[in-house]
């Protein structure tokens, strides 16, 4: 089973994508499944390690939390741009955040979250010390940002992807 479908998650995602882009029919289901299975085997040749997703519900929870945070920070950054950065009192700066995550898959997800949230930008990640260098648009409290990333996002990612 694992030899036939080395990346089951990717196979499912590609099949869904195929059905979204075409219209649903039996022929498209079979064709899409064939393409997805081939593509996941091709990926297995260059990336043999499987993504171990243990708790998908944690990801669903994370999705809603992030959705809410993105809305909030959209509003915050839009207001800062309109008011000229609270009339010149806004400071931006770098923050170093020690991460517990090590696997590439959850790290990629964290990168997507941080990039999609206006106000935070992923600048550099060092895999030897596992520190993330973050640029924050509106610095209020350094510790708050470390806590926000660590408890709000990272612990859920750790729950979903066991180390």
């Amino acid at each position, binding site marked *: 089973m694992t030899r036939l479908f080395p990346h089951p998650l990717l196979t499912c995602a590609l099949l869904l994508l195929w059905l979204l882009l075409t219209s649903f029919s039996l022929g498209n289901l079979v064709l899409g499944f064939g393409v997805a299975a081939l593509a996941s085997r091709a990926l297995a040749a260059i990336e043999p390690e499987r993504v171990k997703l243990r708790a998908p519900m944690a990801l669903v929870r994370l999705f809603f939390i992030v959705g809410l945070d993105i809305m909030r920070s959209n509003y915050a950054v839009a207001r800062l741009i309109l008011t000229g950065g609270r009339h010149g009192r806004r400071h*931006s700066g770098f923050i170093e955040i020690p991460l517990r995550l090590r696997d590439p898959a959850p790290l990629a997800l964290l990168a*997507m979250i941080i990039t*999609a*949230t206006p106000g935070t930008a*992923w600048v*550099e990640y060092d895999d030897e010390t596992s520190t993330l260098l973050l640029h924050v648009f509106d610095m209020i409290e350094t510790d708050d940002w470390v806590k926000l990333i660590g408890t709000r996002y990272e612990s859920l990612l750790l729950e979903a992807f066991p180390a």
Partner: protein
Amino acid sequence: MTYLETLPAWIALPVAFFLVLGATLTLLGTVGLARLHSFYDRLHAPTLGTSWGAAGILLASMILVSWTEGRAVLHELVIGIFLMITTPVTMMFLGRAALHRDRIEGTPGIPGAVARSDVPIGPVSPPEGEAAFADPADAPGED
């Protein structure tokens, strides 16, 4: 424009709301890109357009086309997913390139690189023995 007039208000209102919301946020993002002063600040402004700016326009499109086609049209989700996946790549390229340059130039206020065994940290002058390998254009004081 004729078929748009046949839209009922309960479809037209959310479509208009999401369209205006997305367009406004995208516009604000570009205004920020033009008005902010430092490069790193400018990294943040366009993310307004790639997050809710895009989401608003895509939602409006989904609602409108789903109504006119008479079935759920979800192609826009694919656009949103690809946007989410690809934006971090560009942002990291830009951010790291700027950081690398600032470290080489020794700009104040830039955090230094984490000390690593295999990567030298700039600005450094190469040790005497390795000077032969250094590109003459990179030598300090040339530019």
